[in-house]
Structure formats: C-alpha cells, structure tokens
C-alpha cells in the first residue's frame, strides 16, 4: 500500500528512482538465448544472405545487428504486479520480434524503442538506454531514440553526450522545439552562456511564443546581471505561461538587481512551485505508458507537491479507477481537493477512506481539520480522539484536539489532553480560546 498523506504534509517521491533489484543478468541469456547477435540468428541471417546474395540486404540486416548491445533486462520481482505484467508482456513482444527472422530492421527498431520507452516510463533507465541504443542502431535516422537517449544522458549527467545527441536531433528534426530548449538548459548549467543564448534563440526561431525559451534567455541575462533584459524575458515567459508561478521568483531576483525591492516583493508574494515546461511530446508519451495504480499515486503526489493540483487530482482519480479500494488514492485526492478549494469533495474522499479503513489516522485527522475549519468542533473532536486512540503519540492531532476542546470551553478535558504537549515543549493552549 502506498503511503497516505495529510493535507499539510503532502508526500513527494524523490527524483526518479530506478528498479530495485538483484544482480544483473543478461536478459536474453537468462531466457536461454545468447545476447544479440546470437549464434542462431547469425546463422539464419547468413543463410538468407547467401540465398539472396544481396549486398545491400546484408548491409541492412547483418552489419547493423552485429552492433547491437546486450540488453540487461532487470529483475522485476520487487515491482508491483501490474507493472511486472506490463513489462513482461513487452519483453515477450521484443523477444518475438528478435526471434522472427523476417522482422525488418525498422520493425525491430520499433520493438526495441517501445521496450526502452516502457523501461524509461518506470524509471528503469539502464535497460531503457540499452534498448534505445539498439533502436538507434537499427534506425539511425529516427530522431526519437536519439532524443530519448539524450534525455537519459542529461538526467544522468553525461552532458557532453547529451549535447551531441540533442544537436543531432535538432538537425534531424529542426521543428522540434524541445531539442534546442534542452540544449539551452544544459549550456546554462555549464555556464556556457553564449551557447545557451544561441540555443534559446534558436528555439524562438522555431516557436516564437515559447515560454521556456524566454525563461531560459531570462536566466542567461540574470547570470550576466543584465537585470533589465532578464525582466523583459521573464515577463514574456510569464505572459505566455501564467500558471508557471515559479517565474515570479526569477522576476523578483531581477527586480532586486534593479534596486526595485517593492516590485521584487510583489513578485515574491506570487511565486509558487510551478515551473515552465517545454512541450515535449516524446516525454509526454512515456507518461501515458504507465498503467499502474501505484505510479498514478506517485505521479499524483509529485504533481500535488509541485502545486499542479488539477493534474494531481486527475492522477489520483486514475489510481482510484485502477483500484477503487486504494486508501492512499482517496486520502491524497481529498488533500488535493482541499487545495483546489473543493472542501465538500475532500471531506467525501476522507469519509470514503474511513469506510475502507476505519483506522486510517490521516483520514481521521484531515476530516477533523476540515470540520474544525467548518466550526464543527464536536465532530472534529470525535475524529481526533479516534486518531489518538490509534496513535497516542500523534502530537499534531493532540494539539488540534486541545484547540477544539478549548473552542467549546471544555477546559478540564483540554487540560488533560494538553499535558503531553507541554512535556513535548508545546505552548499552552489558552482555554477558552479568544
């Protein structure tokens, strides 16, 4: 069961995690086959080559496949069963494509690419990389695999390779704005400001109104302490992506540099956790591949933490659709709805949680929190006492309970519950509360 969260303490999954797993095995070898190119296929290919005596055919099928890398399929035993099944099914499809001597390079490339995407979608980056490499060897002009390899390189800090690959993508697919934006971001991090500026400008050549490119140019200007230019670029980015409230922070820093603290403060008041993202169809596709209630939950929590509440609610709803009895999905949906201001919907989710798991302290606490805000102190008290029956050491619940009792002027009772809080160093809650 994935973890639940409280409204004011939402969970976050750390940056992408990879498989959890046992010593590596060469996936194909494990299935009783040699890693590619294996002996059997080499023999078959050579036979066919001899049969057709076609040099070009040999070039297509023989030499490319000689260069394929071994794919180390991961141990899936620690993964959720849905994920395991989904990956196994894709592995079988790849194995069938490999086995079939009539599979063209293009089709085999697709099979490796699809396998890589699925691994990538579940953050199994090492086998994803191997699959993409094979897909790229078999279809060197297909920008997708180079792009996704570059994304992995970028993620894992192989910046020189990432730069080379993004440049290749840019030449193969000049209209893909994500390539120069990614390049610009890498150059920024390397403090190669001229290169970064050039890349973001190139992105604007492709898409004039691209907020990520404007934001990048703003960061370049900020690094150069050209604050007025930074303001211009950040304001443009904000105009194009008004929901990206993290831009306000950058704007505040630029205004601070312009010795305009008042404007800086105004923007700081509006800053938030949502950043600018470049449209990235290939990475978006990865997200769509995921079919796991648990991953929906994780993604929902990531979105929740980033302040993308609508997206978070959608992920939690998907998690509930996949598993209606999912307690954390209901609790987190409740927490998200609270953030969206749908307090009635939130309370319903917590109540649904308690129907599934009557001892869920998070649901009790969150419901109590909502009830307390709604001045329904009596009902809040019931839920808080439920929390403390299950976990007497929950100081947060205890504090809220004492506050609710004080609101109802039940001071003796409040004093009883308060003792442990005082021992823990909390301030005394006055009773009755003013």
């Amino acid at each position: 069961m994935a973890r639940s969260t409280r409204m004011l303490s939402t969970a976050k999954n750390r940056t992408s995690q990879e498989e959890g797993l046992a010593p590596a095995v060469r996936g194909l070898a494990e299935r009783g086959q040699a890693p590619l190119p294996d002996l059997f296929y080499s023999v078959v290919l050579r036979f066919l080559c001899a049969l057709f005596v076609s040099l070009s055919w040999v070039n297509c099928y023989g030499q490319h496949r000689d260069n394929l890398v071994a794919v180390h399929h991961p141990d899936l035993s620690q993964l959720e069963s849905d994920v395991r099944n989904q990956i196994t099914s894709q592995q079988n499809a790849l194995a069938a494509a490999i086995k079939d001597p009539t599979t063209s390079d293009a089709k085999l490339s697709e099979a490796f690419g699809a396998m890589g995407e699925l691994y990538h979608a579940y953050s199994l980056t090492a086998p994803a990389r191997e699959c993409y490499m094979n897909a790229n060897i078999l279809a060197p002009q297909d920008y997708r695999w180079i792009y996704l390899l570059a994304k992995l390189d970028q993620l894992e800090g192989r910046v020189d390779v990432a730069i080379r690959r993004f440049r290749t993508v840019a030449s193969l697919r000049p209209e893909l704005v994500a390539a120069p934006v990614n390049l610009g971001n890498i150059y920024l991090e390397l403090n190669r400001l001229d290169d970064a500026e050039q890349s973001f400008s190139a992105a604007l050549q492709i898409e004039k109104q691209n907020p990520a490119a404007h934001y990048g140019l703003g960061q370049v200007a900020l690094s150069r302490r050209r604050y007025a230019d930074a303001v211009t670029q950040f304001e443009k980015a904000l105009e194009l992506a008004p929901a990206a409230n993290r831009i306000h922070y950058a704007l505040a820093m630029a205004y601070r540099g312009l010795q305009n603290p008042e404007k800086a403060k105004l923007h700081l008041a509006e800053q938030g956790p949502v950043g600018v993202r470049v449209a990235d169809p290939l990475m978006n596709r990865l997200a769509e591949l995921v079919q796991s209630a648990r991953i929906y939950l994780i993604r929902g929590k990531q979105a929740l933490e980033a302040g993308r509440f609508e997206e978070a609610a959608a992920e939690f709803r998907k998690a509930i659709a996949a598993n209606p009895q999912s307690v954390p999905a209901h609790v987190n949906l409740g927490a998200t709805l609270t953030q969206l201001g749908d307090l009635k919907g939130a309370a319903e989710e917590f109540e649904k949680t308690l129907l599934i798991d009557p001892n869920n302290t998070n649901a009790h606490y969150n419901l109590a929190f909502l009830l307390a805000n709604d001045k329904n102190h009596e009902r809040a008290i019931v839920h808080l006492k439920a929390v403390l029956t299950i976990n007497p050491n929950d100081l947060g619940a205890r504090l809220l309970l004492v506050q609710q009792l004080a609101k109802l002027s039940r001071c003796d009772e409040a004093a009883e519950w308060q003792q442990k809080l005082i021992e823990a160093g909390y301030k005394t809650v006055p009773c009755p509360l003013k």
Partner: protein
Amino acid sequence: MMLKLFVCVAVVGLNLGPVHLLANAQSKKSPPPRTIFNEVADKVGLTFRHYNGMTGKFFLPEIMGAGGALFDYDNDGDLDVYLVQGSVLEATDKPDSTMFPWRETVSPRGRLFRNELNSTRKLQFTDVTEKSGILATRYGMGVATGDINNDGWTDLYLTNLGANQMYLNKGDGTFVDATQNTKTDDVRWSTSAAFFDYDRDGWLDLMVVNYADFSAANSPACYASTSARDYCTPRAFRSPGNRLFHNRRDGTFEDVTAIAGVEKEFGHGLGIVTADFDDDGWIDIYVANDGDPNQLWINQKNGTFRNEALLAGAAVNRDGKAEAGMGVDAGDFDGNGTGDIFITHLMEETNTLFTNLGKAMFEDRTREAGLGMPGRRFTGFGTLFFDYDNDGWLDLIVVNGAVQLLPELMRKGDPYPLGQPKQIFRNQQNGSFTEVIDQAGPNFQLLEVSRGAASGDVDNDGDTDVLVTNNNGPVRLLLNETANRNHWLGLRLVDKTGRDMLGASVEVVVTKNRILRRRVRTDGSYLSANDPRVIVGLGSATRVEAVRVRWPDGATDELRAPQVDRYTTIKQERPVR
C-alpha cells in the same frame, strides 16, 4: 570603532615543532603531494562503526545518521573525537538480529576517543567512553559542542531520534547528563544543533533543528517510481519545527522559540550554520531544510529574529525551487568579506552556492562557480568550507551517500546500495571551483554512505583534517598531508575563562590589499561539530601585518604581527556578565 582592550597573546607550544621547522624549510621547494588526504582512522585507534538498526522496513531515520565532533574535551591542546551511534528503531528489535547485526558485546552507544597526541607526541586515540560518564544509547543523530557554563570546558549536546541529551563537562575527564537541569531537552527527531551567543551576553545559546514527525508506527510504505519499495521522503511526515534555547546564565536554558519568532517558519530541518551574514555585529541563523525553503533568521538585536531568506535570495535556488537541503556551511570563499553559504542536496539537484553580495543579500552562483554539474551525480550531506592547501582561499569538501536505492549497486549485489564517493573542490581564486579527483586520496573514491564531516587540525600540524562519519559504516579520519606547502596562522579565540568565543570573527591582514576573514565556530556541515580554532592559510606569505578580532559582544581588538606557522591564543579580558 576599535576598542583597545587588553589582549593576552599566548603562543601555544607546538607539539610537533620539529615537523613545522621542516615544513617551513620545505615550503616552496617540495613538489605537490601525490595524495592530499590519507585515511588513518583504524591506524590511529579510531575504531568505530556506525550501526543503523535497519530491519528492512525502510524506516527513514536509519539512513540519515550520524555525526561526529572534533573538540578538545580535556583541554590538553589536541582534538578529541566524539562519534554518534545509532540503535534499534523498534523496542522489539534486537541489535544482533537486524539486517546488519551488531556483533560487539557492549550495546551500541556513542563513543568518546581521547587524542594522545600531546602526551605521546603521536597521533593515537584511546576509547575513553566508559570512564567519561557519557551514556548515549538512544538512537543518535548529531552533536554540537560549546562551553555552556563558562567554566572553560567544552560541553556536548547530543541530538537523537527522541529525547536529546546535554552532557556537562566536569573538567576531570568526565561528563554528567544535565539535560533535565539545563532544560534543554527536545523529544522530537532532532538533527543538527548549534551553540552561539545571539544576544551578546557572553553565554552560549542553543538552536536545535528538527526534521520529521517520524515514529515506527506512523511510517508509511513508500515506493520509487519503478513501483518498488523504497525510503520515504521527509514529506511523508510533518515537520515538527525547530527550537531556540536561551542561556539564562544560571545553568539553565529557557525555550524562547516563540518569543524569538523562530517558530513562525520551519521545514524539515537538517543543517544549521550561524554567522553574522549582514555584518551588523549580531549573529544570524541559517537553517537548511530538506524539500522546503531554507530560513535565514536575521538577528533583530532585541532577542528576536526575522526570516528574510526569500528576499535575500537564499531560500530557494535560482530557479525558485526548494531543494533537499542536507548539510550547510558558511564562509567567505570569494574573499569579499562576506559570509557565503553552500548547501548540499539530492542527486539530480545541484548543490547550491549562495554568494553574499553584502548585507545578507545573496545570489545563487552555483553554475558560475562550476559546482552545478558535479553535484548532480551524488546526494551530498556533510560539507565544509576550509582551506585544505592553506593558499588563503576556502575550498570545499562534500561527503555523499544516496537516500534511495541505487540500481547500479543493487545489480552488483551491494547489500546497502547507497554508497557514493566523496568530493573535494579547489577554490580557483576567481569565484569558481574545480573538482580535485586524482590527488584527493583513495578514500574519496570509496563508495560509502557518508553523512557527517567535521574539520579540525587533529595532528596540530597547521593544516585542516577532516573527520567523516559513515552511515552503517566505519568512521574515517582524513589526514591532510599538505602541511609543508604553504604558510599558515593558527588562532584560538577565548574569553578569560578559556571558553572558545564562538561567533567571533577575525580579519587577518596579510597586506593592505589582502585581508582574509574567518570566523570562530563549531557549527555547520551536517550533524557534526568542528574545531573552534581558526587556521588561516597564507600561501607564500611569511608574515601577517595584523589580526583584527571582532568579539561576539561587538568589541574589537587588534594584534600586530603575530607569528606565523603556529597557533596563537587571543584572549578577551572582559568580565563575563
């Protein structure tokens, strides 16, 4: 205004005098050493292995500890070591039946090691825990050092998962648990702590940073994005808030968290460093939070603080993102006279360098300093600004260790797949750093789950050594082997009782145009406590024009032409209030 107070200058007899003479003679001619740091812990009797009590339930505390301290508990002029130990996490667990069982006959507990350098002229440690009276058997996290009662003996504050402990140094080689008497307990999950004198009354106050409202009972199951089980982030738990204790000068402390205003904002706190960031003569506080904006508590000079981190540009990174702050240190790395801040973070984030533009206005210059990409590869914890090569410019060390399972290590069958190498960055004297890989020393390449790092001159040879603590692993003592390369000035700043004047700042005037600013501290890094002495690298300079001291109470002193390549004690002869 410069107050001309009586200054007592004492030249400390150097224990390794002959070594220094040799060192000075060789200072310019000898080739650079092949190895900067040699790891010698076992060799010098520092035998300690951290125990984390893990049972496979992925409890967050088991991967977070623990720290260590370099401090001179017996006032014999050399640095002793205290090492924090873990324990089991559930009452029903037995240390010998956890995933990495405890094999020793005595239960796990924090340990005190006495440095025998001054009595034997040889760097050697003796475990004196039994005699010391320190009984630290709780689930330990960190340690802070400072003399809380102005008796000239350094006391210990131990942070735990659960009740903390204050150990008062009796001055006879033993300590007594004074937690209840001093009223400095905090039963929450505390991490780093710092002693400093925020109200300039001549008595050390204490700030304790707390991390997460964890209990074995409330620990949820967490998953990686592969869908496999993994460690939770702190955000699975509420942040409990920090605590500020004011020293009442009568052996007790008062909890002034609310009065001082520091209860208003907090996050999942892990690191703390105190310094006068706005250069107004009053010590400020910087708290590094894991996943939440950091706080910069600016001292309002009236017993209260105001968090100004956001406008100051030190709450989040340049992209406006709150990062996973772990360890933190402050120092004037660029030589402009202001305290800069460096914070370690998760892998795939960068570590972050906030340069102080003056008056506590900061700018994230991580990538300009060349510290962006190198930090992305690892999860950093302990970190220190220190001048390892005594060239007069503060370098950086970062000790790393992941907090979520590393697939590459799992594939290799590593039973604790969180290990990562350590990193050292040399100051290029132009606002940037370069990672030193080949010369750092073989221990830097070892994959360990490093957490704490404490700096100090353990062998009194005039360069800075580093104590590194490893989670579920052995302690490391990285002995600096660069002593013979550059000149240095060692300073110990004390009051008339012999208390180290934490928070005092020094300006070492090498020439009119070359002024090095350092501060006296034991805080900074992660869960650890540092040598309060100040070592100032002088490069090839063989003399110093003056040392200007600003004491924590605001008074100033000046010492003309102190001798270099040795330690000098400067005493403030002012009555304690």
